[in-house]
């Protein structure tokens, strides 16, 4: 069983929702980013989404755009993202890591080599935001060969007619984008999310994680009532921003602050069904 499947099976056994934490690799710099990454499981992250920085993150709101640019400015590369995962895996063999980003840096690295290197580093799955089912056939043979899950996105605009195309070839979990918008902008509406999850649950056995609009403990709690996991990204990346001055200088304390926020959000998600 894959690390992702195992983790969701364990959560199901405990009858609790999972918490998925997103941070951008290399943000605000390599070592701070590693400090945060290695602390995430103990803070309550059941799954880690690690963002691969890109100059043109067209599906991301201001917080994650800034995080990406900070990482790139600090000299981050795709190879360094894989290094972070490798270092993380030296001490943690069980927490799934999913890389999330855009296709061009993967295409530039070489799809086959990237999937192979990512698997060897300890990556479990990929979310490639701008690679819809219509276009991911060129990557899928490589993810399959490397044993990486392709995590597909379903959105409020994905209708019943289109859903089978989204689910065809999906593995790991299904990521439901809870708003029509970019990351971290609009507010989530738990009632419409619960409504949207019904047909998804009927159509797939994959666990469903919900994200894009979860900002607060109450959001996380509300989503965790119905979803298999709640994803928070922008709020964590914005927390890092608070420690970066206008001159780009980092003041101390960012890892502790981010991890403390993760602890609160994860506790809300974990406790939602009690």
């Amino acid at each position, binding site marked *: 069983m894959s690390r992702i499947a195992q983790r969701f099976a364990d959560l199901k056994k405990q009858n609790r929702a999972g918490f998925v934490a997103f941070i951008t690799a290399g943000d605000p710099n390599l070592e701070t980013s590693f400090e945060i990454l290695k602390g995430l499981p103990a803070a309550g992250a059941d799954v880690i989404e690690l963002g691969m920085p890109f100059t043109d993150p067209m599906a991301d709101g201001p917080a994650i755009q800034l995080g990406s640019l900070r990482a790139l400015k600090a000299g981050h590369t795709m190879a360094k993202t894989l290094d972070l995962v490798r270092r993380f895996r030296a001490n943690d063999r069980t927490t799934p890591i999913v890389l999330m980003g855009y*296709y061009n840096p993967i295409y*530039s690295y070489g799809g086959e080599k990237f999937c192979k290197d990512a698997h060897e580093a300890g990556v479990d799955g990929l979310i490639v935001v701008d690679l*819809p089912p219509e276009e991911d056939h060129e990557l899928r043979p490589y993810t399959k060969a490397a044993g990486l899950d392709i995590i597909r996105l379903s959105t409020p605009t994905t209708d019943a007619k289109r859903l089978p195309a989204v689910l065809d070839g999906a593995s790991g979990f299904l990521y439901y984008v809870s708003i029509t918008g970019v990351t971290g902008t609009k507010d989530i509406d738990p009632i419409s999310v619960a409504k949207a999850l019904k047909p998804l649950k009927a159509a797939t056995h994959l666990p469903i994680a919900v994200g894009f609009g979860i900002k607060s403990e109450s959001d996380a709690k509300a989503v965790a009532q119905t979803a298999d996991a709640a994803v928070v990204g922008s709020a964590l990346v914005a927390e890092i921003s608070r420690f970066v001055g206008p001159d780009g200088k980092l003041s101390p304390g960012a890892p502790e602050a981010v991890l403390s926020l993760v602890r609160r959000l994860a506790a809300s998600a974990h406790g939602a069904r009690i």
Partner: protein
Amino acid sequence: MSQMKPNSYKTGPDAQGHFGLYGGRYVAETLMPLILDLERAYNAAKADPSFQAELDDFLEHYVGRPSPLYFAERLTENFGGPKIYFKRDELNHTGAHKINNCMGQILLARRMGKTRIIAETGAGQHGVATATVAARFGLPCVIYMGEDDIKRQSPNVFRMRLLGAEVRPVSSGSRTLKDAMNEALRDWVSNVENTFYIIGTVAGPHPYPALVRDFQSVIGKEARAQMLAREGRLPDAAVACIGGGSNAMGLFYPFLDDPDVALYGVEAAGHGIETGQHAASLAGGRPGVLHGNRTYLLQDDDGQIIEAHSISAGLDYPGIGPEHAWLHDMKRVNYVHATDMEALDAFQLCAKQEGIIPALEPAHAVAFTQKLAKQMPKDKIILMNMCGRGDKDIFAVAERLGVKL
């Protein structure tokens, strides 16, 4: 890459929106259903004679088509070679070719029942053309424009505001056209119900590259017929400048299957290809994926997009339309380039010799036409697309020439 010569260069894209390796639909899932809708609506419009009739009527009476085919006699003498003809798309309403496409897209938006228009702009010409058609049809309009471009093109910013559009400055990334396009895509994802995104060039997810090409092909169709009427034959060469490549695609497309017409797309070489400060994605880039399509991109070794540079804000884009990428690989079109300095010289020469102040974008085409003319005999004909007028550029040019206005 060795590829068989096709029977026709005009059959693309395929059903999935690919021109060979290029094109496609690399967008977030939220947008997928929308671009599939757009494709259906566009196919239906194409099959409906009343859509083309309505478009033709607006092109004639509002845009001012057909645009003239003009024999540039003094430049012909100056260059001392073949006859130079200009397709005068700078005489269109709003001063550039951009409105051909905007008129087509807004009629499509109306057919689809969309009530809000968004667009990105670099030089501001596409923004002005979009704001113009939005005003004409009474639709609210938001134009995304990079902060740096807003500084370079203040007359166009004011024009857009006069036309009732909201110009939203984009401060992310490199603050130019590519970032304006990111921001427009983000707006579209956030306003899926009512919004129509009028993309200004032959790029973006399928069906945009084909749709924009079709609307711009009026340029080449007219020019081809006008040339036959005027000279009794086709030109030996057709030249157009390329940023994203919409005026070039519009000029070239009707000539693609005329093997005796050599086609030249002129990219912006900025300070020179060798300096790395340019906007020539074919000359200095490699295939990648950005803004919904695969094409040649300026990028670093790690697949991060590099900022383009050109004196012309309209060419300042790190990519190029996917059909151009394919025509480049197939060697049907010759892609060449001209530097900032060459364009500036051609800008002044054209003004003084022909009484036509070209936009800085087609000034690149004039510069290459001059080079090409020197290699061709007098009995040949070069057709060049004068795709925009230079009124918007006089402040930028004055600054480069050290003149205080």
